[in-house]
């Protein structure tokens, strides 16, 4: 009986620790997001671009100064920055990010639509680069010091120095221009009504940008996995397993794989930031209508509400990736649970 209550208590303790850990994490993310709101708002309100001018655009000559004042009245641009920030923040809490000037629709809807397109691209790249990179890393690690390892390592290091957009251009040149296998750009065939677009059309337009991101994304995870595997192979329990006569795939399967899988998965979740950055470049090369493309548009044409919304959204995206990485560790790795209860 005594033992049981003791166990119960320690279980309670573990749960409590986890709850405090999670609250701390959530609090940190909240403060970071708040700071980000303030910083980006301040930065953008001091930018040299006049939002009214950006909104009016080519109609500059036809808009009178009275109309300009009406426009800035309508957007609330004639108020002092602090008041504008409070207004914007209050709307933000209610989920209202304002209206995009270039798409003429609520920022929230623009981000939702565009992110859906980007998500398909990023998910495909995330998945394939993870799997292929992991396999490459394991192959290199198992053959440490041999030719295969050297070649793989050299390849990955070179890949890490490759500009994403240049790789995209190369793929366009080879597969779209020379071989004609894939369309040159855009998310759907040009001049086709949206009802006529089939799922095959979408996939066809997705392959090249996804391939670009997958090729680039392999490097980091492969190098990391290789190093982890080499470290694991140096350990005493591998020496013992080897002494028992295990080798090759059997050794890897029974003793190596589990220990290197977790860091690889975590790394993959923590790489959301690079994934997002890569997708901005890939979408630009392939004119793929995703969130990255919208980011560039918003920046080039001075759409402040949209740019602000995307900055916050991308940060949220990265934070959720990091949080997932932490959670996976917490749930899966028994050593972390022990450490937090100590």
């Amino acid at each position: 009986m005594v033992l049981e209550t003791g166990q119960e208590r320690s279980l309670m303790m573990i749960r409590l620790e986890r709850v405090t850990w999670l609250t701390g994490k959530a609090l940190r993310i909240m403060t970071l997001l708040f700071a980000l709101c303030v910083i980006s708002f301040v930065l953008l309100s001091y930018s040299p671009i006049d939002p009214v001018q950006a909104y009016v655009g080519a109609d500059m000559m036809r808009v009178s100064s009275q109309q300009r004042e009406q426009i800035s009245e309508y957007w609330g641009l004639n108020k002092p920055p602090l008041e504008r920030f409070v207004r914007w923040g209050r709307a933000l809490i209610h989920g209202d990010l304002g209206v995009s000037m270039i798409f003429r629709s609520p920022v929230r809807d623009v981000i939702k639509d565009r992110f859906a397109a980007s998500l398909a691209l990023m998910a495909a790249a995330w998945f394939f680069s993870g799997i292929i990179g992991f396999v490459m890393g394991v192959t290199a690690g198992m053959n440490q010091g041999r030719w295969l390892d050297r070649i793989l390592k050299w390849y990955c290091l070179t890949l890490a120095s490759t500009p994403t957009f240049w790789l995209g251009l190369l793929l366009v040149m080879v597969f779209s221009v020379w071989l004609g296998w894939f369309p040159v750009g855009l998310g759907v065939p040009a001049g086709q009504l949206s009802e006529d677009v089939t799922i095959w059309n979408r996939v066809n337009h997705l392959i090249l940008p996804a391939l670009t991101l997958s090729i680039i994304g392999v490097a980091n995870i492969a190098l990391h996995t290789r190093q982890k595997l080499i470290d694991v192979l140096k350990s005493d329990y591998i020496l013992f397993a080897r002494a028992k006569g295990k080798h090759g795939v059997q050794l890897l399967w029974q003793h190596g794989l589990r220990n290197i899988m977790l860091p690889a998965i975590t790394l993959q979740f923590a790489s959301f930031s690079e994934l997002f950055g890569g997708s901005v470049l890939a979408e630009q090369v392939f004119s793929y209508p995703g969130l990255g493309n919208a980011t560039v548009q918003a920046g080039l044409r001075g759409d402040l509400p949209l740019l602000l919304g995307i900055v916050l959204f991308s940060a949220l995206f990265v934070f959720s990736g990091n949080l997932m990485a932490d959670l996976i560790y917490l749930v899966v790795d028994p050593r972390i649970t022990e450490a937090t209860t100590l």
Partner: protein
Amino acid sequence: MNTSLTARMPYPVMAFIPTLNRRQQTLLLMAMAAVVVGVMIAAGILLDNDRIATHFDQRNLAPSWNHLFGTDWLGRDMFTRTAKGLTVSIGIGMIASLASVVIAMILGLASATLGKTVDSAVSWLVDLFLGVPHLVALILIAFVMGGGAKGVIVGVACTHWPSLTRLIRAEVLQIRFSEYVHVSKHMGRSRVFIAVRHVMPHLAPQFLVGILLLFPHAILHEASITFLGFGLSPHQPAIGVILSESMKYLATGMWWLAFFPGLSLLVIVRSMDIIGDHLRQLTDPHSAHE
């Protein structure tokens, strides 16, 4: 970057040259990479500006001995444009990574020596800057600064310090709690003496290597942001500009417009990476005995 902390194998080609030891191989490789970078910079400075003037009689030429990388639709020599663009990129990358390393040094030292409050404040700042994807942060900063080289430099400097800050903080903490520092303290040495004689010598190589290892990221980001249209102006020679212009001509089959400039960028970035990484190996006592 974590993975590169371990020593690298000598390159496959090197296996055929048994007379050199590892240190010599490393030095040779570094020298070769330095020559590549040096030649590119020299070409960028020395080549005549007339070669990138408009020559309508030499338009759209494929690569030849006279025009190594071919010419574009205005008859400009692509090799000259590439070399000049890369020289500008290298300059910008140098300034930006120097600024970034200085920020990382100051914040890393502060968080390791000035107590808990400063430490958690710096770690919060690091999280803040790692939270926004680099490219989005770069677009935001370049947008606010109104584009141009200034925007790129400030943007790259502001986004690249966090990871190095963590490294330096860890390094300083390790030195502070090491035995020789304890002994030194007990022997009555002042804090300044410890800072100057025990901590600084460890940070000097970090400083140099930090610049060289941040440099490739800096150039790549400069090219990316210029490619997207937020960086250098289209009138300046820049790899990003060259590549974004080449997109319009891809369908015409003028492959050399994009292929060679991008490849040169890759070679320069990789060379700088090799120099930085091998220099780290040479200065790092942990890998010296491998």
